[in-house]
């Protein structure tokens, strides 16, 4: 039931993070009882926009109107008071408490004595859940519920807060087909009651099934808002990706050499499904795919950081067993993680110590580290990779993102890795440093290293890869030679099309 006036209008919304314009002059509006889909690539600005609405990003610019009245949403609490609720991908429930306790967390009905009125908590929660046709016993603990049921509990919690605007961020990512159907039925009941829904999803089928209008964001800008009826999937994909390649990619192609790595039917239940591919020396193999498609999980499995259920790995044609990162490093594999600070660096150690961390045994005898040899090696990499640091003893926490990334790369070059797994190698790095990293990749490939590059930036994938594998839901959805890879083709495969 859509009535004619917007409950929410957002005008000229802008958000700047240090060094990045995340949102630029974005418009968005939401009618009463509408399901409005927010669509865009990773990093297009969807999350930033809904975070502004939920009060998590208070320092944005622009104007927000609720029922035509301007409001300022400075805290999550304020958003709650205004009737805006957000249901994140990772649910925010306390597993050890019951559904009812979670629904009324922080606002438990009290008796006159000051104690919590347990009976009312349960009966009120139960009636809320029944209204949603959830079929959940309110006195069950959340950890005993399925993901879909937990989502229902979140929705019930939102309704108990008198939410009029419900934001759902990838709500179906962990649901089965039948559960998705139930969720959609729930969304329809909510909209009939006048609740408006902002729906974020990558899954095209769903968008056409549940959405009334769609707004496409790209690079933090508003591209288009249009009714979903009468639009086609191809059009939407085109709107999402259509951009000129602004960045210059200094790709140098190298004639691929011998096979460096071959993977056969690598599987991990629920995460990776029969992944097979070959990577050759001198080659950059790009891995594209949406968040959660299994890209990072593939790298972790190859590096021995996560266990696998099946499949074989061959290095230089010989089968190898990789049960831990140590094994992987012995086999000449290096892994540049997507989370540089969380997994790549020890921030309070020095540049020298980080560079040598994976190969310290080489610089020591009987456990005694030779500082001279260590410093010589480290300073060689600082020169070669042009790491800008006041000295080898500088803690890496004080370096810029680009220089930090070069330290991580140096770590793997120092350990003499010949197979390099680069997961988002240029994330959060300024343009100049990006180009330096691309040039370094060229040089490594020319020296005969084999590079597997995971990236969310399609332009980077196309610009730097010799070949592109596209992943979707833990499988390889397709392979494209560099010459044929276009953003549209890649995104189409990543979204589960053909």
């Amino acid at each position, binding site marked *: 039931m859509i009535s004619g006036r917007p409950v929410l209008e957002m005008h000229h919304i802008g958000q700047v993070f240090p060094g990045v314009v995340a949102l630029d002059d974005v418009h968005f509006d939401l009618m009463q009882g509408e399901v409005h889909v927010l669509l865009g690539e990773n990093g297009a600005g969807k999350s930033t926009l809904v975070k502004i609405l939920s009060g998590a990003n208070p320092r944005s610019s622009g104007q927000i109107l609720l029922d035509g009245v301007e409001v300022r949403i400075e805290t999550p609490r304020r958003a709650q008071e205004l009737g805006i609720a957000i249901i994140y991908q990772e649910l925010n429930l306390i597993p050890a408490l019951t559904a009812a306790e979670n629904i009324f967390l922080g606002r438990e009905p009290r008796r006159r004595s000051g104690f919590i009125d347990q009976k009312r908590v349960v009966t009120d929660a139960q009636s809320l859940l029944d209204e949603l046709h959830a079929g959940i016993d309110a006195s069950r603990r959340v950890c005993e519920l399925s993901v879909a049921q937990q989502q229902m509990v979140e929705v019930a919690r939102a309704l108990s807060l008198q939410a009029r605007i419900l934001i759902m961020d990838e709500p179906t990512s962990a649901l089965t087909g039948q559960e998705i159907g139930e969720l959609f039925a729930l969304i329809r009941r909510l909209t009939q009651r006048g609740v408006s829904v902002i729906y974020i999803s990558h899954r095209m089928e769903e968008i056409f099934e549940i959405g009334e209008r769609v707004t496409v964001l790209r690079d933090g800008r508003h591209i288009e808002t249009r009714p979903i009826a009468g639009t086609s999937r191809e059009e939407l994909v085109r709107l999402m990706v259509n951009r000129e390649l602004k960045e210059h990619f200094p790709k140098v192609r190298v004639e691929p050499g011998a096979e460096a790595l071959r993977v056969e039917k690598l599987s991990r239940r629920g995460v990776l499904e029969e992944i097979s591919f070959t990577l050759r020396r001198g080659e950059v193999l790009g891995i594209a795919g949406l968040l959660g498609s299994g890209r990072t999980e593939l790298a972790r499995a190859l*590096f021995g*950081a996560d266990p696998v259920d099946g499949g074989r790995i061959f290095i230089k044609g010989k089968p190898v067993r990789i049960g*831990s*990162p*140590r094994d*992987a*490093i*012995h086999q000449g594999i290096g*892994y540049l*993680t997507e989370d540089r600070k*969380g*997994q*790549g*660096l*020890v*921030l*309070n*150690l020095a540049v020298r*110590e980080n560079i040598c*961390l*994976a190969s*310290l*045994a080489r610089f*020591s005898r009987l*456990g*005694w*580290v030779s*500082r001279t040899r260590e410093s010589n090696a480290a300073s060689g990499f600082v020169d070669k990779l042009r790491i800008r640091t006041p000295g080898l003893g500088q803690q890496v926490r004080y370096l810029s993102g680009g220089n930090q990334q070069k330290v991580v790369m140096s*770590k793997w070059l120092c*350990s003499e890795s010949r197979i390099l797994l680069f997961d988002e190698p240029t994330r959060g790095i300024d343009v100049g440093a990006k180009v330096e990293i691309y040039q370094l990749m060229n040089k490594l490939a020319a020296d005969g290293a084999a590079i597997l590059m995971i990236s969310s930036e399609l332009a980077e994938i196309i610009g730097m890869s010799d070949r592109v594998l596209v992943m979707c839901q833990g499988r390889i959805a397709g392979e494209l030679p560099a010459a044929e890879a276009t953003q549209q083709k890649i995104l189409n495969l990543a979204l589960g099309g053909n």
Partner: protein
Amino acid sequence: MRVKSLFLQHGRQLTTLFVLILLSAALWALSPHFMSLSNWLNIAQQTAINAIIAAGMTFVIISAGIDLSVGSILALSGVVMASALQAGAPVPLALLLCLVVGALCGSANGLLIARGKLPPFIATLGMMSVARGAALIFSDGRPVSGFAPGFRAIANGEFLAIPLPVWIMAAVYLIAHLVLSRTRLGRYTYAIGGNEEATLLSGVNVKLHKTLVYSLAGLLSALAAILLTARLNSAQPIAGMNYELDAIAATVIGGTSLLGGEGQIFGTLIGAFIMGVLRNGLNLLGVSSFVQQTVIGAVIIVAVLLDMMMKKRRS
């Protein structure tokens, strides 16, 4: 320039040292006897036991762990050694036995934490009780007393007019410093405490090195047990109560972060001396031991508060 870089690298230790000097000056003003050489040797000798345990604690805390069992390990290794001595074992053998018992208890901690994935607090809390109980069982709850002068010389003996325990403490700190700053074990201790995930992904055998760190803490507790037993001419199953708290306090006053990844061994030594000087000074001033407890507790809180405030300022 040189002074500046020295301060940047060791700023935290220099502040602690400054506090120690200030404290000593104040006590000197209040009690002239405080500044005598004999009193300082006395302080050093009394500090040695806590300082040695605290050296092991520093390794553990830098690795982002904690060890609550050091006092109980001291008691257990002490009574085992004492019984061996009384049974007629040669002194070197008894000492070795003591160190082995300590190191074994420590590696049990390490294995529980590294392989069993227990939180260090829980694993060592358990060991604290297990080792204490074992000490009581082993000694039947009674002190084991009376040793040959050769053994007691470890505590009473002097070399160049300085008591042996002070030499031993100095040696422990010198070695601990070299291990922390110059060996793979030291480097990995900082790395594990700073970012265990990144360290693991760099191919470091995190489990082994964690186990080694706790074994070292156990070993140093046993070394402290030797000194204590020799000084008291008695090994007591209830010895070392609350020593873990003193060791943690010395480490933290010395600037090692409880979050791990940061810390300097000489900071801990200064921290141990701050506590020793405070106890000694308050004794000289005739302050009751009840009041002493309160003062020392307050000093720990103030030291850490100041440290946190300075860190905030810097960042």
